[in-house]
């Protein structure tokens, strides 16, 4: 009888061992960074200097419910519902005090597999996709469909990953000034052999001309760029047409487009190289909609499609992870180059007209399996293409080019370049063991920054002349922060 037992069990047992279920995952980053220099607890302005100590709190809950679960070894249909809630405020960690108004449902979609076509995963809902991540920067240069609600089909088997998608990005890009933004695109990743991957992809957006829709792209005729920057378009028109201000020209409907092209190269698994990710993207932004000016108590809407339709961005990023001494010392090094251009704007500094490059290097030594020592250094150079943008001194509020006050000038500082160095070091408790990116980690860190910009961190110092009368500005280029923080994926 005993030899027949397995066959008997096979007959009486259910066909699958896996029942309907779901899962909750997420991400959490929080901590405290007491700041005795008037800052808001971040070492520098943004994560161009490395994400560490430069990012605020963040929490994500990622929910999945399997309505029809995947069954290993079969081509049976399956389907699941996904929803993600995330936001940047946690109680006692920031000024938002963990308010739910800082959170949003950023992703929601339903997936179905092995329906109509075997091995194809259909997705309807949000479509966010990226080839990978620059972990030290928390940046994803090759991200597409972040703004899209639509449908996609993906095949991810063996050495090929292919994604095709289409939808509408209007609500994300234009919020309450919604206008349809048709979106299409895709991505292809090939693993040529174990240790080498290539990827290409892109996204194209088209916002059609719709006569009568005030949120569709329009251009108010004969608007001078400098007048628009200064908020003096209507004033100029009134000066030129003193008796006909109410005949301010009507906007002319037009269409608009934008795109993003991207490429990826990944290799590793040899010698001390764990993996190297290299990303490249080139994008053109969708034009802005409109701005409002008030003249003589009347609001005028200025449509600016043709004043904002030449904004492009080139991003190149690379990150390599190495075992320097296996089990003892690991290193991650990353670099980023960005070149943003605005073909319409040649007169005023802005985020759309700048060039920057940066490097970040992190060393992590393992004192024990769970106690690690971390050291990180970064250097960044940011250059404003359209003149001075950064204030180097406490009295820079009075100075522009050559130290000469220019109250009608468009510059916002006395230097066109910001140079920033940061160093960070501390102890990491890592209950899950070794690894630079092993989480959760509980960290006690000290961070130091030097910048040629005065008070180059989020602060509450004087910003205007009337504030200057009450609170004297201070000059400080060094910034220190001590942090107790934690980070976890779960």
């Amino acid at each position, binding site marked *: 009888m005993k030899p027949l037992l*397995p066959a008997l069990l096979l007959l009486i047992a259910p066909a699958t061992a896996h029942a309907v279920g779901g899962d909750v995952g997420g*991400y959490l980053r929080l901590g405290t960074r007491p700041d005795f220099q008037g800052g808001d607890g971040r070492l520098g302005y943004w994560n161009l200097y490395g994400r560490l100590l430069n990012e605020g709190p963040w929490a994500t809950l990622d929910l*999945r419910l399997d309505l029809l679960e995947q069954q290993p*070894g079969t081509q049976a249909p399956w389907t699941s519902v996904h929803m993600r809630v995330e936001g940047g405020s946690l109680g006692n960690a920031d000024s938002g005090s963990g308010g739910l108004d800082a959170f949003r449902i950023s992703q929601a979609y339903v997936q179905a597999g092995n329906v109509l076509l075997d091995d194809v995963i259909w997705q309807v809902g949000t479509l966010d996709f990226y*080839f990978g991540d620059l972990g030290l920067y928390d940046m*994803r240069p090759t991200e597409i469909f972040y703004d899209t609600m639509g449908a996609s089909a993906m095949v991810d088997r063996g050495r090929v990953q292919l994604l095709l998608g289409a939808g509408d990005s209007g609500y994300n890009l234009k919020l309450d000034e919604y206008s349809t933004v048709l979106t299409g695109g895709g991505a292809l990743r090939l693993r040529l052999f174990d240790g080498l991957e290539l990827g290409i992809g892109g996204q194209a957006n088209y916002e059609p001309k719709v006569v009568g829709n005030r949120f569709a792209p329009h251009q108010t005729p004969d608007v001078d760029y400098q007048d628009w920057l200064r908020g003096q378009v209507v004033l100029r028109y009134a000066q030129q047409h003193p008796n006909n201000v109410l005949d301010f020209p009507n906007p002319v409907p037009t269409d608009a487009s934008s795109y993003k092209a991207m490429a990826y190269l990944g290799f590793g698994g040899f010698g001390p190289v764990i*993996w190297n990710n290299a990303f490249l993207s080139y994008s053109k932004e969708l034009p802005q909609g409109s701005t409002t000016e008030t003249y003589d108590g009347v609001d005028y809407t200025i449509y600016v499609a043709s004043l904002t339709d030449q904004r492009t961005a080139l991003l190149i990023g690379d990150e390599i992870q190495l075992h320097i001494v296996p089990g003892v010392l690991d290193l991650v090094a990353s670099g980023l180059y960005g070149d943003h251009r605005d073909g319409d704007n040649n007169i005023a500094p802005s985020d759309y007209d700048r060039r920057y490059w940066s490097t970040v290097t992190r060393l992590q030594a393992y004192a024990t399996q769970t106690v690690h020592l971390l050291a990180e250094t970064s250097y960044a150079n940011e250059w404003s293409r359209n003149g001075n943008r950064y204030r180097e001194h406490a009295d820079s509020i009075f100075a522009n080019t050559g130290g000469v006050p220019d109250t009608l000038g468009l510059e916002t500082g006395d230097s066109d370049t910001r140079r920033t160095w940061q160093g960070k070091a501390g102890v990491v408790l890592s209950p899950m063991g070794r690894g630079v990116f092993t989480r959760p980690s509980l960290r006690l860190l000290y961070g130091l920054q030097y910048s040629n910009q005065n008070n180059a961190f989020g602060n509450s110092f004087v910003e205007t002349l009337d504030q200057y009368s009450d609170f004297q500005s201070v000059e400080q280029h060094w910034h220190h922060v001590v942090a107790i923080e934690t980070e976890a994926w779960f």
Partner: protein
Amino acid sequence: MPTSLLRRLLPLLFFALLMTSACLPKAGLVQAPRPMSVAVVAALEPLDKAQVVGVPDDLLVRIDSLLAARDLTAVAVPIDTWSSAFTKGRTSRFRVAHVALATDTDLVLVIETFARYDSQLSGRYRWSVRVTASLAPGDRPEDAVVRDFTVPVSLIYHHEKEAAAVGAAAPIIERQVARLLDQVLGGMSAE
């Protein structure tokens, strides 16, 4: 004793207390009542392939260490003796029975893993590794004690697939299997 002297001694007393606490007896591992052999099979069910395969070596090494620490001797079961049967029979009861009949050991330990990709989450690739660990007497596989659990895993790279997910889950699987062993061995010791 003057108060100032007491204040000076307080840190020393606290330090001494900490040091002596390190010498307090720790809860010991549950030992097998006698040296025993255990047939060990750890299987991975790929999502996109029909054939059930073995798990990464790191997990097997961890399991062997667990067993050795409890006076149990791991007996490896060649993959070609169970892979085909595990592919056809996908229930834990069948698999435990199959291994028990194919071997001649005191105990049978079968660990089944199934890794499922969830989503890209804050720069990582999130996986869920579902594990069923079954421990049974070699001569009574129907008496298996089963432990089901799911391990969340966040992998960094897209090329890291199911085997990497199971490898990343190995520390949690090791801990859960240790509890299963302690439960069963504790009961055997009490008999």
